[in-house]
C-alpha cells in the first residue's frame, strides 16, 4: 500500500490488518509516554484546502505520536490565495522533502490527481475530497463498531482479527453531500456488514441504487424493523445547500423542524433501538437538527470515542504507508 485514496482500495484482509494495527497503536496510547520513535525523520505535510478541526488535529497528533515531523498547510494565508495551482503547491512540498501528504480538498478527486499525476513521489493520504471519499473516517467508524459490537478477539483485545460480518448499520441523513457515507458504505460492506442508508429523496445521490446497500426514506421503519446494531447520523451540510430561505428552508427540505421530526435521532428513537446498539456521528454535530442532545449525550453515543479512535487509526495508516522499505515503490 503506497497511498490511501479510496475506501474501496482496501480489500477485507487489508482492512482487518489496518484495524488490527490501529488496535496495537491504541494500546500504546494508554501509556504514560505516548510517543513512539517509529517514524523519526519522516515528514508529513497536512495540506488542507478546506476547513477542518478534528481531522487535521487528529492527523497531526497521529504523526507526532509516531515522532514524524509535521508541517501544517492551510489554503488560507498561503500562496494558494495568490492563485498557485495544486501542482505547484505539491511540488513545493516535495522540494521541502515531505514523505507523505495528507490532503483535504473541496474538489472530488484532487488526492487521486496528486497521487496519479507523477507530480510528487510522496505517499498521498486522502483526508476528505469534495463529496467523494473520506477513507480514514470510515476506518475509524469501522474500528469503533468493531470494538463495541464484535466481542473479544485474539489476545483478549476487543474485535482483534475480526471483520464486521452480520452487523447492520443504518446511516441516516445528508447522504448526498457526505463523503463519509460513501466511504463507509464501501468499507463496512467490504468488512461484511449490511448498510441501510436513510434519507429524504432529495438528499440521496443520483445512482445510489448501484451502491452496495439498501436505502429507505423512513427512519422509524428502519429502526423498528431493521433492528440496526448501530446508527450513524450524518451532519446536515447546510453550507453546501445554497442560500437558505426564511426559517432555514433549503432546496432539500422544507424546514429544519420537519427534518428533525422525520430524520432526527431523538430520545424516542433511541429507546426503539436494540439494547446493544450504539450511536455514531462523524462530527461536527448540529445538535437539535440531526441529533438531539439526549441522543448525543447518552451512554450509547460513542462520538467522543470516535475522535480518540481516529488518532489510533491514523497512526496505523501512517505506519503502514511510511514505516516499510521505500525502494519497493520505484
Amino acid at each position, binding site marked *: 500500500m503506497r497511498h490511501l485514496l479510496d475506501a474501496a482500495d482496501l480489500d477485507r484482509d487489508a482492512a482487518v490488518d489496518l484495524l488490527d494495527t490501529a488496535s496495537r497503536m491504541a494500546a500504546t496510547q494508554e*501509556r504514560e509516554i505516548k510517543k513512539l*520513535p517509529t517514524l523519526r525523520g519522516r515528514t508529513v505535510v497536512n495540506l488542507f484546502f478546506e476547513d477542518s478541526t478534528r481531522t487535521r488535529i487528529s492527523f497531526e497528533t497521529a504523526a507526532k505520536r509516531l515522532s514524524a515531523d509535521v508541517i501544517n498547510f492551510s489554503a488560507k494565508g498561503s500562496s494558494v490565495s495568490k492563485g498557485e495551482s495544486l501542482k505547484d503547491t505539491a511540488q513545493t512540498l516535495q522540494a521541502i522533502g515531505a514523505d507523505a501528504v495528507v490532503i483535504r480538498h473541496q474538489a472530488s478527486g484532487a488526492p487521486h490527481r496528486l497521487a496519479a499525476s507523477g507530480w510528487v513521489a510522496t505517499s498521498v493520504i486522502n483526508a476528505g475530497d469534495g463529496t467523494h471519499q473520506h477513507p480514514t473516517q470510515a476506518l475509524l467508524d469501522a474500528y469503533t463498531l468493531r470494538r463495541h459490537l464484535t466481542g473479544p478477539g485474539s489476545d483478549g483485545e476487543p474485535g482483534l482479527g475480526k471483520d464486521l460480518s452480520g452487523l447492520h448499520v443504518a446511516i441516516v441523513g445528508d447522504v448526498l453531500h457526505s463523503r463519509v457515507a460513501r466511504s463507509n458504505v464501501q468499507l463496512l460492506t467490504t468488512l461484511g456488514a449490511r448498510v441501510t442508508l436513510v434519507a429524504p429523496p432529495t438528499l440521496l445521490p443520483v445512482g445510489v441504487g448501484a451502491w452496495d446497500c439498501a436505502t429507505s426514506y423512513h427512519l422509524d421503519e428502519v429502526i423498528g424493523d431493521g433492528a440496526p446494531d448501530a446508527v450513524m447520523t450524518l451532519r446536515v451540510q447546510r453550507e453546501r445547500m445554497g442560500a437558505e430561505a426564511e426559517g432555514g428552508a433549503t432546496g432539500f427540505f422544507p424546514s429544519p423542524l420537519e427534518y428533525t421530526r422525520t430524520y432526527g435521532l431523538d430520545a424516542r428513537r433511541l429507546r426503539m433501538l436494540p439494547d446493544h446498539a450504539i450511536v455514531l456521528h462523524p462530527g461536527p454535530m448540529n445538535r437539535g437538527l440531526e441529533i438531539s442532545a439526549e441522543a448525543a449525550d447518552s451512554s450509547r453515543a460513542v462520538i467522543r470515542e470516535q475522535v480518540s479512535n481516529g488518532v489510533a487509526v491514523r497512526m496505523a495508516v501512517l505506519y503502514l504507508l511510511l*514505516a516499510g*522499505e521505500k525502494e519497493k515503490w520505484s
Partner: protein
Amino acid sequence: MDTSVASTPPPDGPSGTEVLAAADISRALTRIAHEILERNKGAGDLVLLGIPTRGLPLAQRLAARIAEVEPVDAADLAGSLDVTMYRDDLHRHPTRTIGHTELPAAHGQSIDDRVVVLVDDVLFSGRTIRAALDALNDLGRPRAVQLAVLVDRGHRELPIRADYVGKNLPTAQGEKVRVRVIEIDGVDSVRIDGGRSNGGSAS
C-alpha cells in the same frame, strides 16, 4: 527473534542439522530458570518479558518453571514486549506486523524498580535487544534489565551480551538458525540451516 518470518521454512521435511531437540530445550530452560532465581535471590521482583513471536512462549515456560520452585504465580511473572515500533531497520523491510505488549497485571502493570528479564529465542546482531531496551524506557524504569536467550549465535553488531544462554552456537554469517516452539510451530527444535552465504539470515 522471528527466525522464520523473512524466509519461509521448508514445508515439513527437516533441513539442516538439529542442534537442540525438545529434551535439550527443556533442560536448557530449566537451567536458565534456576540461574535467574539464583542470581536474583528469588522471584520477588522479577518480570519476564518475552519478545514476540517466539520469545513469548519461552518467557511463559521460564515463568512456569520458576513458579514450580518459588511461591509465585506464573501469570504474575510473564508478559510480552513488542519492539516492532522501536526497530532501527523498519525502512529496510516490508512493513512488519505489530505485536502485543502486555505487562503482568501484578504490581499494577508496572515495571518500575523491578528486575526485568528480557527473553528471546536467538541473540544475533543485538539490534532487537537494543529496540527492546528503548521500548522498556517508555514503559518505566526497571531496577535492572537482564537478558535470557535460548541460542546465542554470535555476530553481534552492538555492545550487548546475554546474562543467561541456553546454548552458544558458533555460526557463519550466512547460516540460518531456526527455532521452533510447540506453541507456535507444533514442535520444539533448534536447527541450523544453509551455509549458502546469501547474507539473508534471520536476526
